[in-house]
């Protein structure tokens, strides 16, 4: 029987949650016996090769590409898991939600104390994904099945959730594994 596939991605995040996935240490060998990794920065597969059992999403939606990737994940994965606080509540990237987008761009590219930008241009190449008006938690964009809180969630939390799901059991986190920091 073919092994179930797991896909992962980082949207507007810092890859800390992916570090936490790697942090499951030697258990990753057991994981590789249990599943095949599909689209993921871990193996650098860029496109889905087939239907996935589980999609792990790190990061919120800050630009149009994030939204597109997230929708792809929803389309190709049976179960979607929001991994970490950026995916759950926007987190550090969402700190710009309290400031109008134009002010953010002006500060970053024109007015910031360390900015050197003689052309006075805000980057606008069509190759650069358009920023959204604000950063959105992913469950405001597509339906999310499970949430693993933490910044990042501990390796144990990720392990616990993955093994439960792959074993056909509900994801239940004990007290020690629910952390927002």
């Amino acid at each position, binding site marked *: 029987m073919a092994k179930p596939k797991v896909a992962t991605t980082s949207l507007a995040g810092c890859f800390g949650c992916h570090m936490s996935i790697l942090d499951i240490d030697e258990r990753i060998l057991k994981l590789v016996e249990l599943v095949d990794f599909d689209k993921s920065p871990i193996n650098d597969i860029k496109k889905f090769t087939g239907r996935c059992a589980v999609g792990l999403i790190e990061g919120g939606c800050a630009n149009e590409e994030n939204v597109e990737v997230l929708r792809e994940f929803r389309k190709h994965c049976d179960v979607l898991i929001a991994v970490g*606080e950026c995916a*759950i*509540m*926007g987190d550090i990237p969402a700190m710009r939600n*309290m400031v109008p987008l134009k002010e953010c761009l002006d500060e970053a590219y024109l007015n910031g104390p360390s900015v050197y930008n003689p052309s006075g241009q805000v980057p606008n190449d069509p190759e650069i994904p358009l920023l959204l008006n604000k950063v959105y938690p992913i469950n405001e964009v597509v339906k999310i099945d499970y949430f693993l809180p933490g910044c990042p969630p501990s390796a144990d939390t990720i392990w616990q959730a993955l093994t439960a799901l792959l074993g056909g059991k509900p994801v239940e986190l004990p007290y*020690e594994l*629910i*952390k927002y*920091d």
Partner: protein
Amino acid sequence: MSETIPITIDGVEVQAKPGQTILEAADAAGIYIPRLCYQKDLVPFGACRVCTVLVNGRPQPACTQPVAPEMVIDNSSEKVQTYRRNIIEMLFVEGNHFCMFCEKSGNCELQALAYRFGITAPKYPFLFPKREVDASHPDIFVDHNRCILCARCVRASRDVDGKNVFGFVGRGPHKKVAVNADANLGGTDAAATDKALDICPVGALMRKRVGYAVPVGQRDYDTKPIGSDIETSKAK
């Protein structure tokens, strides 16, 4: 007048004392009723409603409701727990709670309640309100992003410190803690030694230069859920 008032909490008969609130009677009996704005030694305020119980089927705040004979109190049904969970979730989305860099994380009562209720994510959309930080005082600061309007600082400053530094202004989503100076906290006679500083349940009213003093893993709620001190007092 009889010595005690018999009430029932979750099917357990409790002998309450006259004049006690439901919450006080439950505490004495080792039954934990979740709470945020309530603080022993402060006048009950009934602001947060996290302590909602069903009294003979009707929702009441346990911190302000005095006991009466034959009360039948529901402190644990799914219905009651859902009220509380919803309130906790709303408190998260209506402020800006960035626990990952909050100095109070691990010692915060709001966060601890969310942990105790097993909340992995609020079901409501985050509002991301624009709020201010007032760091004008040399020793303390108020971060309105994290304030849950529990009025503990208001009551402590008024009744314990005798200073009346804090009060509320505005209504609804515009309600916020204000200070008794023309401009900001720096202009008040608030001091780092004030009771008001000890008593904020969240990271809204904080002392400067002491953040992150206790490492992760050793903070108040890292291993034991909030309320377990009350629950273990029952076992003894």
